């Protein structure tokens, strides 16, 4: 089961103060599915897909498993800065080749600090 944390409870995915752990997965010819929150106990703030297949695209779904897939064209790098706890990546079954990078943030670090002090600081700008 895919867990999702409401985005409103999270800091901005592009917050420069977020410490992330880069995790690399080699893309071959087989599907890659990750329920990131369950497997790593972390949220993913950035997904980078390098499609080294010169012939065929890579299909990828993030965030919402029911959403339409994005397509990374051949010999192209795709980068997405958006919180996601899920990824479903499908390369070509014959020519698939590339690299998947997930920038992972521990859930505690990804969540907004909703203590009273933090709320006051945010209100004060």
């Amino acid at each position, binding site marked *: 089961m895919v867990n999702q944390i409401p985005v409103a409870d999270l800091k901005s995915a592009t917050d420069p103060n977020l410490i992330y752990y880069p995790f*690399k997965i080699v893309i071959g010819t087989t599907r890659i599915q990750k329920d990131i929150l369950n497997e790593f106990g972390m949220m993913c703030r950035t*997904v980078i897909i390098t499609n080294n297949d010169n012939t065929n695209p890579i299909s*990828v779904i993030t965030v919402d498993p029911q959403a339409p897939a*994005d397509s990374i064209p051949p010999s192209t*790098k*795709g980068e997405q800065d958006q919180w996601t706890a899920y990824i479903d990546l499908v390369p070509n079954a014959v020519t698939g080749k590339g690299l998947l990078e997930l920038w992972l943030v521990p859930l505690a670090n990804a969540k907004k600090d909703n203590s009273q002090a933090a709320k006051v600081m945010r209100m004060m700008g």
Partner: protein
Amino acid sequence: MFNLTPLGSVQTQAPGIKSVKGTSVDGTALYTCPAGKRATVNGSFLLRAYGAGGRINIAVGGINVLNWEVASEPIPPNRSKNFATDQVLNAGDAITKVQDVNNNATLDFVLNVTEISL
């Protein structure tokens, strides 16, 4: 929504100088020295993700081009390093590999190729 960047896209900066951008590759023809010319290469690397740690040994090589080690030193993550080399490419030589030999890091790179007509 993914922001897309073509790999190995060749852009002409000035007459005789071409710029090739990409991310760690092995097997893609990034640049081929055309007939009637020679070329020299310099460029820069940016480490995107620093994996297992240790020395980063960057190799550039390809068809008719001996693999040459460009840098062998610890390079912190998310940092760039410039390099120059006296490697000369002849007509038909192709660069097909730019990568960390130890497979510790993903490299974003820009190669600047200067062509000289013979």
